[in-house]
């Protein structure tokens, strides 16, 4: 466990143009703090790339590059192999991508890179839609959420499918390390990045990153919403390492989902029946997780 006072005062991610209260901003900043200046950051088209690397203002203070949208995993492979070719053993190769860039268009390259076993850390900051381009749904948009491509006019539900389980997809690769995290639990996240930094091979951290702009909440509630997601059981904090799964925080009882959903405009059209569907799905997901833990 890293202590707060030990955290570096060096800001390697600074002066960026992300929205006020950006969850992905918290993720990026803390990750850079842990990984330090011997880090190469690969950024596909995403919120973070578009708010950090616009010539000549560069908000990453380490080596970074903007990758094409689908290619993050592959670029990480190339850089990782090049580090090997150059005999560099102390470089952190970091992919920092959104949910669309990871779970949709980038999943082939990510899967390939993980399967090849190249040495990198991939952090997916999940704001549950294509936020950079104005809130279009991704395969990680949750059930019932409004987005511009899952509209809710005339009684429509919004997103009709449940969020894809990326954690399990990564586990299926038998990846050396993967974890979920939430902006609501920054220390849990920091610990996971610290752990990932020490492990060789591919590492994947999936961080729920509330987005005031796309989800519809006040800019000061980003961390709070991230906590509620965990406390209502709609997001779990877990780790997979050496073939074992660990649940990091297991609420004794879940807060009502309405506490999480009710605080966000994207869910304001949902009714009690919808909440029940979401709760049922939550319970199924937890059951599946616990079954995996017991295996």
């Amino acid at each position, binding site marked *: 466990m890293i202590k707060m006072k030990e955290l570096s005062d060096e800001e390697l991610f600074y002066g960026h143009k992300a929205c006020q209260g950006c969850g992905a901003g918290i993720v990026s900043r803390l990750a850079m703090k842990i990984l330090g200046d011997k880090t190469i950051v690969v950024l596909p088209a995403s919120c973070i790339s578009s708010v950090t690397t616009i010539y000549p203002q560069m908000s990453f203070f380490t080596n*970074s590059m*903007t990758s094409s949208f689908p290619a993050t995993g592959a670029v990480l492979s190339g850089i990782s192999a090049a580090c090997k070719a150059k005999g560099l053993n102390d470089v952190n190769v970091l992919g920092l991508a959104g949910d669309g860039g990871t779970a949709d268009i980038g999943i082939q390259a990510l899967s390939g890179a993980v399967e090849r076993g190249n040495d990198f850390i991939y952090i997916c900051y999940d704001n549950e839609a294509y936020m950079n381009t104005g809130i279009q749904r991704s395969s990680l948009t949750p059930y019932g959420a409004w987005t511009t491509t899952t509209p809710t006019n005339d009684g429509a539900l919004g997103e009709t499918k449940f969020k894809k389980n990326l954690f399990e997809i990564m586990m299926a690769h038998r990846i050396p390390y993967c974890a979920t995290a939430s902006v609501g639990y920054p220390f849990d996240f920091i610990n996971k990045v610290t752990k990932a930094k020490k492990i060789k091979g591919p590492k994947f951290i999936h961080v729920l990153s509330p987005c005031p702009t796309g989800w519809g909440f006040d800019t000061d509630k980003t961390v709070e919403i991230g906590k509620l997601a965990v406390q209502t059981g709609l997001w779990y904090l877990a780790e997979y390492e050496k073939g074992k799964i660990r649940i990091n925080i297991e609420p004794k009882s879940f807060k009502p989902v309405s506490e999480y959903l009710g605080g966000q405009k994207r869910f304001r059209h949902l009714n009690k029946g919808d909440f029940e569907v979401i709760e049922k799905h939550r319970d199924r997901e937890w059951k599946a997780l616990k079954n995996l833990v017991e295996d």
Partner: protein
Amino acid sequence: MSTTAVATKKNFISGDEAVAYAARLCKPEVIAAYPITPQTIIIEKISEFIASDEMKCQFLLMESEHSAMAASMGASMMGCRTFTATSSQGLLYMSEMLHYVSGSRFPIVMINANRTVAAPWNIYCDHRDSISERDSGWMQLYVENGQEALDTLIQAYKVAENPKILTPIMINLDGYVLTHTYELVDIPEQEDVDEFLPPYNAVNKFDFDNPKSLSFTASPEWQTEFRYQQQEAMENAEKVIKEVDEEYGNKFGRSYGGMIDEYYVKDADYVIVAMGSVVGTSRLVVDELRKQGKKVGLVKIRSYRPFPKEYFKELGKKVKAVGVIDRDISFGYEGAVYSEVKSSLYTPGVNVKTINFIAGISGRDITKQYIADMFGQLEAADLGKDVEEVQFTGLRWK
């Protein structure tokens, strides 16, 4: 062809194998590739080299061509010399990355085994794949046999990595006709290649002392200037391609004329312009027709990008008719090579006749008879006969 100045090993190998040997001689530090017919043998051969320790490099077997080019770019960002190879659908699949690489100024060298593009699906040679990537910002060189593929690959790194150029190069090798054809190929000694091609000393790379942001976003205020740089680099390449080819010739005894190779053009009335393997076959036809007293000649375009426009300006003043063989067509217009040759030929006062031969589509053989007929058509056009400007050679119902 003069005698070789340095020691070489004669080998009877396929074009693909020649490429693999050339890649080995160039000592790339990272290779990221994905197999596709008819390029596959290159990747297989390199796999053998790596497995037997004859070649030392980081070798990434990718899950797609898009990723192969993306990984190559990642490696290039670290200052590594890289190599990859693809073909056809694969080239198109990596299209997005081609622009990324050229725009970011990484001197990646790639072999493209020319193969048509579906549909109709087919694995045989034409130039639809590479011509479709004409504007990707890559230099495009076309070779006529396995030996030239090997020599050009070695030359290509020296051109691409030149600090005034820093532009990627795609070497186009006709699928099957060259990739799968075994010919006598001289393989130079490693130490001679090392002398000719020193390790890549990258400036455009990550640096831990002075960290860099690469491939960044540029607003409309700056895009034009970056694009201008790319055009300027291509213009610089025109000279460097020739210089490097000459230097190679001095050392290894083989050179190819730089951007252009001429065959009996000096006093020719009728000239065929072509790229790739058909050039070799055309040489024989020129020999035959010359024996019959016909004043025919041949121009091989070796460098399609940068395009040898100055050469054609001069050619237009000297000849009576020019035919261009395109192994592709830009539907709704004409062959792309033809368009460009034509627009370069015509300078004030020049009124040369031109014909476009769309030939060798999707592996259709371009026979010596076809080529002889092309010269016949040029003569007919010159004599005032009504000749169709854009023709599909060997069309069944004609």
